């Protein structure tokens, strides 16, 4: 695992201008992703993990807008400022160097076109192949790589003819068709049965190893985090509250939210007697709580937590946390 960064994000802000008010969905997020690793975003629904992942290639649609921050993508060691790229430049990166897999494979596929066509067009539009015949042949190969049986027939199938698991495999093959360097998987298993989930995760792990990918995995499932990830960022209400290597996060969770998360789900690395839900609810992002956004639900909240947003401090090597318990005032 190299220590060269492939993505560097500084103070990213994404706001949504809705009729109910301005939703500050992502409000100052900073992190790095290193080449070859599996990096996880974990958090509850609405914490901003999907939005952040989409912002990486400016995939934010109105009423959302990227209002601040810097996103750097490293190619051959040289940083590229994503936010300053033109439409055409970012189009060339999407699907070729940075690829996505979304939650719902059924929604991601156009019901009127075959799987083969989906794969083919992705390759043709990036110049990976120039003729359709070649594209379809490559498509069959790709389907084989993601372990879809009878790929020569499946290539001519329509999405509705495939099961959920197969659709997601097809989506993965689309994502890999142009040999990307970074694969962003946004809750790839949420819509699948548990048994299929394990298969898909195994597949991702295998492909990552074979092709030397960097994987950004977004999930709300701590079990998936434990199984797949090298480093984890824990998000809450549009902020990153803790970042670190996966084994440190699980054995030494620093932030009260991380600790509460681990207490609320079965922990594969520790023996737990009782599961406890986290008190309270996720805050309204139009009027978020001042200071640290977790303070209304935090058992250790001090007065400063209500006033000022905590800085991110490194408590041990590579393990950072944004909490006034650890940050000196």
């Amino acid at each position: 695992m190299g220590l060269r960064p492939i993505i560097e994000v500084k103070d990213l802000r994404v706001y949504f201008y809705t009729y109910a008010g301005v939703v500050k969905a992502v409000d100052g997020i900073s992190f790095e992703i290193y080449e070859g690793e599996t990096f996880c975003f974990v958090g509850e629904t609405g914490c901003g993990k999907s939005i952040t992942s989409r912002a990486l290639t400016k995939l934010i649609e109105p009423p959302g807008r990227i209002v601040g921050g810097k996103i750097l993508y490293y190619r051959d060691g040289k940083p590229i400022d994503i936010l300053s790229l033109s439409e055409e430049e970012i189009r060339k990166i999407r699907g070729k160097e940075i690829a996505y897999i979304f939650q719902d494979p059924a929604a991601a596929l156009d019901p009127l076109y075959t799987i083969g066509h989906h794969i083919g067009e992705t390759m043709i539009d990036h110049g990976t192949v120039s003729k359709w015949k070649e594209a379809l042949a490559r498509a069959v190969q790709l389907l084989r790589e993601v372990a879809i049986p009878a790929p020569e027939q499946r290539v001519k199938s329509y999405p509705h003819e495939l099961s959920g698991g197969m659709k997601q495999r097809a989506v993965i093959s689309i994502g890999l068709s142009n040999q990307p360097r970074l694969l962003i998987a946004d809750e790839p298993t949420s819509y699948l049965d548990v048994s299929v989930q394990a298969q898909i995760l195994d597949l991702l792990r295998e492909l990552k190893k074979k092709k030397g990918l960097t994987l950004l995995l977004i999930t709300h499932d701590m079990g998936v985090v434990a199984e797949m990830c090298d480093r984890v960022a824990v998000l809450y209400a549009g902020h990153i509250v803790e970042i670190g290597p996966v084994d440190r996060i699980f054995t030494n969770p620093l932030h009260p939210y991380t600790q509460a998360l681990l207490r609320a789900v079965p922990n594969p690395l520790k023996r737990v007697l009782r599961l406890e839900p986290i008190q309270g609810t996720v805050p309204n992002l139009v009027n978020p709580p001042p200071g640290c956004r977790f303070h209304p639900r935090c058992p250790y909240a001090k007065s400063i937590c209500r006033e000022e947003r905590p800085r991110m401090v490194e408590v041990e090597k590579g393990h950072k946390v944004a909490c006034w318990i650890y940050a000196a005032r």
Partner: protein
Amino acid sequence: MSARLLDRVSDKLIDALVAVIGRVRPEWVKKNAYRVKEWKLMLYALNRSPIGLAGLVLAMGFVVIGIIGPYIAPHSYDFSYIAATGEYQKYFLAPPGTGGAILGTDDLGRDLLSQLLYGARISLMSVILVLPVGIAIGVILGLIAGYFGGLVDELIMRITDVFLAFPGLILALALSAALTSRIAYVIAHNQWLASFLCAVFALKPSDVLNIAPNLAIIIALWIVWWPGYARLVRGMTLQQKSNVFVMAAESLGMSSFQIMVKHILPNIIGPLLVFMTLDVGNVILVQAGLSFLMGAQIKIPDWGAIVQHGSQYLVNGAWWLVIFPGLAIMLAVLGWNLFGDALRDILDPRTRRSIEFR
């Protein structure tokens, strides 16, 4: 920002409404605070749609003029300048502005403005009398067909298909022509009905029999209007039926009637209301079209009949007899269509989401 100003106005209106409800049913107000907030947000969206607001103004204008029209008209609909003043040359097909006729006169010297104002009442009453009945029949049949399915569904849908395959205008026209004399008979023998119609259409008692053709149109439209709603509601009912809570209600032993009224109906009322609003324009147009085709049979002029009557004199250059009534129809329908459109955008959470607010 003028939108914010309108927001304050709409907020006050909603608060006033809530106050009234509070006096009658205070528990409702407490339970539905979130819903009231939703209404306020919906009106904010409306305030930001200039087209929707324009539509609202036109639509309300139609309603207001429909109500007060006969009372503010300078003359009665059968008043004739020629008969009153004897000045034939001056008042025969007089262009707008001649003497007292602001909008001109027709071949009998009748004041166009007054005719339009009375016609507004007929248009408005047509809408008020046609829509609720057509919708009621359609909703009932649609709910039954959709909920019970099977043979009942087949039967009701076949009947609906027959009506829908029938060219609607012809059906309505045939019915109108057929029913006119029957209706006149009923009115003549029913004092209560005659008084009711006089009040509703602002007629002179001696004239009440002449409303029969216009009334025939309304009744014909009852028959033509329900199949569309029956089919629509059936579709919506089928969608609702697949929801789990319906199965749950059934397993709890709720009667079919209760399920239909308490569970399915509330869920379809929203889109149904939007449909109704968009349908107001259709009623006005179809009623005008029928009145146009009935032509000479219409004795109490309404907008469609005025156009038909005036079209004969287009060759004489009497453009006002055609332009003004048609314009009235168009503005009324346009208003309701704009308003209905805006309403649909507001009530659909997807389009609501994509409106970027500043």
